[in-house]
């Protein structure tokens, strides 16, 4: 779980190899919004995992910050075709929140402050591939980018990395979220260009 030499990639890869099909690289960090930006003070923030049987585990901000922290350097890919290389995050691996949790559910709905939701397979949140991120590029995550904390699932299109995350609900079936139910792909793999439902 400990991350050594973050950002090391072995031999240099050309940037083109790191760009999924149909994407272009950007230096900026565009803000896309589907509603008013929630302003959630860290002391009012909490994060709850709810199993398919209705059992819950919750963490306050203080408790979350006391969990093992991880630094991650990763590329992110937005379905609106921008990709951003080597973004630096700090947060807690989802493996930590799910440690020892009994579940047979295959899917998760992420719930956010402000009402946003997104859905994805539970397996995509485990195995060191997803985080609750609270720090971006060395600074506390701003509300525009999902602060105080957002989901970070960089191997899927970035709408899956729900801003202002407040909880995860385990579900036996895929229960499409805000964009998944409005035309976007249920899974959203940038390398297979799964943008819209049917892609």
């Amino acid at each position: 779980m400990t991350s050594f030499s973050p950002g090391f990639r072995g031999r240099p890869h050309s940037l083109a190899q790191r760009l999924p099909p149909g994407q272009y690289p950007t230096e900026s960090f565009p803000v896309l919004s589907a509603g008013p930006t929630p302003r959630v003070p860290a002391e009012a923030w909490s994060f709850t995992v709810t199993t398919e049987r209705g059992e819950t585990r919750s963490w306050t901000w203080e408790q979350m910050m006391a969990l093992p922290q991880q630094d991650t350097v990763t590329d992110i890919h937005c379905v609106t075709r921008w990709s951003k290389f080597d973004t630096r995050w700090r947060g807690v691996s989802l493996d930590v929140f799910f440690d020892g949790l009994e579940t047979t559910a295959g899917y998760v709905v992420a719930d956010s402050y402000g009402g946003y939701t997104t859905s994805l397979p539970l397996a995509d949140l485990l195995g060191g591939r997803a985080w609750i991120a609270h720090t971006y590029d060395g600074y506390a995550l701003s509300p525009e980018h999902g602060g105080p904390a957002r989901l970070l699932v960089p191997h899927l299109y970035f709408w899956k990395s729900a801003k202002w995350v407040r909880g995860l609900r385990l579900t036996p079936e895929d229960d499409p979220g805000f964009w998944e139910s409005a035309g976007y792909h249920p899974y959203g793999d940038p390398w297979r260009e799964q943008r819209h439902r049917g892609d």
Partner: protein
Amino acid sequence: MGDPGAFLDGNALAGPLSEILSVEPTTAWWRCPHCKRAGSLAQLHLYGPEPGITARCPGCAYVALRLVREEDHIWLTLGSESGAFRFRTA
């Protein structure tokens, strides 16, 4: 229009909706099922247009409609709980 976090209003839905509706939509009357506020489609608050347009009640931010476009289709979702209609546009 340059501030991506800011919203426009329902007047800007006239163009996108003209691709699937035959009647000019901005004068359409609508009542929010959540806060009961009534008004015209032009008064809705708009977010987007990427990755999709989200139109919300100006009073309580209830989601009135979502519109997602891909190359040959427009997806229209009315309200918060209904499924998306996929319209072929080309």
